[in-house]
């Protein structure tokens, strides 16, 4: 799984950090998403998938299966 984030679309709601804090973080000054791990381990794939679905700004995209 490859994860990408679009910081321009992020509205700083924090949904992704709540679900997968090992993969996503927020910038301190404006809450915009920071990607910590672009290729998370398999045990986190389900949560990362949920984070992408839960993102209100559709700022998280997932690609690949490796």
């Amino acid at each position, binding site marked *: 799984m490859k994860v990408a984030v679009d910081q321009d679309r992020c509205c700083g709601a924090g*949904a992704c950090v709540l679900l997968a*804090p090992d993969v996503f973080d927020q910038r301190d000054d404006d809450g915009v998403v920071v990607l910590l791990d672009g290729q998370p381990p398999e045990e986190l794939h389900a949560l990362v998938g949920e984070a992408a679905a839960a993102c209100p700004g559709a700022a998280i995209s997932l690609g690949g299966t490796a």
Partner: protein
Amino acid sequence: MTNTTESATDQEQPLAIPAARAAGCPFDPPPALRALGERTRLARVRLFDGSTPWLVTRHADQRALLADPRISSDITRPGFPSSVPVQQARIGFIFMDDPEHARLRRMVTAPFTLRRVAALRPAVQKIVDDLVDELLAGPRPVDLVQAFALPVPSLVICELLGVPYADHDFFQVHSAVLINRETTLEERREASDRLFGYLERLVGDKLDHPGDDLLSGLAVRVSDGELTREEAAQIGVLMLVAGHETTANMIALGTLALLEHPDQLALLQQSDDPGLVASAVEELLRYLDITHNGRRRVALADIEIAGQVIRAGEGVVLANDIADRDPDVFPDPDRLDLRRDTRRHLAFGFGVHQCLGQQLARMELQVVYGTLYRRIPTLRLATTLDQIPFKHDGSVYGVYELPVTW
């Protein structure tokens, strides 16, 4: 028969919203609205001004539309289905589109990140513990709204914004006018002017004596020319009103719902599991869905739903209260079940306007629901359900008073 029903539906008068809740069912959405949702995914409804925007009933459709760039939050656009007459003078960023919305929202996002909210938890726990101490030392019965539900979020948002809590009577009274959907345009204009003037003076004070709070941060941006003083004050009004009215109503109405569901209350009282408390918060957000006006938007382009077309320029109401009772998403939706998976509720909205303060609200409610009923295990109503004044006239639902004893 089918044809007759369909043509009768076509000729039916659009349902006037807000529709009334059923007597004796204060936690459930209006029956007429739910009946509409059972019949159709998209229907015309009638607003106070006679306009007839579309109402979207299903969870999946609402979620898709709220994230759709062809939908606008710009309240100044013709066709926008406002819940009350619009004051054009001052518009908060919740009624703007990107990029202007994002520019302003990002200026005030920092205190609401998960990290900052988590760091605030011990201070909120102290506020809640102190207020419970006062309750226990004070007279019985007591109105839980005034003695607890309002002070918790007011104290928190005052600290966060840098607003003196001593002024709480002033801003609570004017906030209440602003979020009452039956007050007149004149009354709301005056309340808005008073709050705006108050915040504008505070921003001025922060320009001279900056502190470590949100208004000071805005004042710095005013000094730097990024923001006008008027914009800063307007953001302050939005934060202050949104910061205490919503959470206060979730505390009082949530307590009432739990008292009416003793088996669920017992779960909270008997568990040490923070996961259960967190899940209880989500379920009460879903079940109560206090922003019962629905999300309001206007279409920027033609959008097809269920074989019908919302035309560009037409208003759209997304009724989150019935979406959160959609049985396709939440099985047995009318049951309050603190252990269910409620993550997809729309109580905070969806799309780029999703509630900025949601992590703060979650944390405050987790502290409250995890503390109040354990420290006062015999808490009970000091009246009967039918005597409780509900905020049927509020743009945020709740109770005006909640007399309790123990």
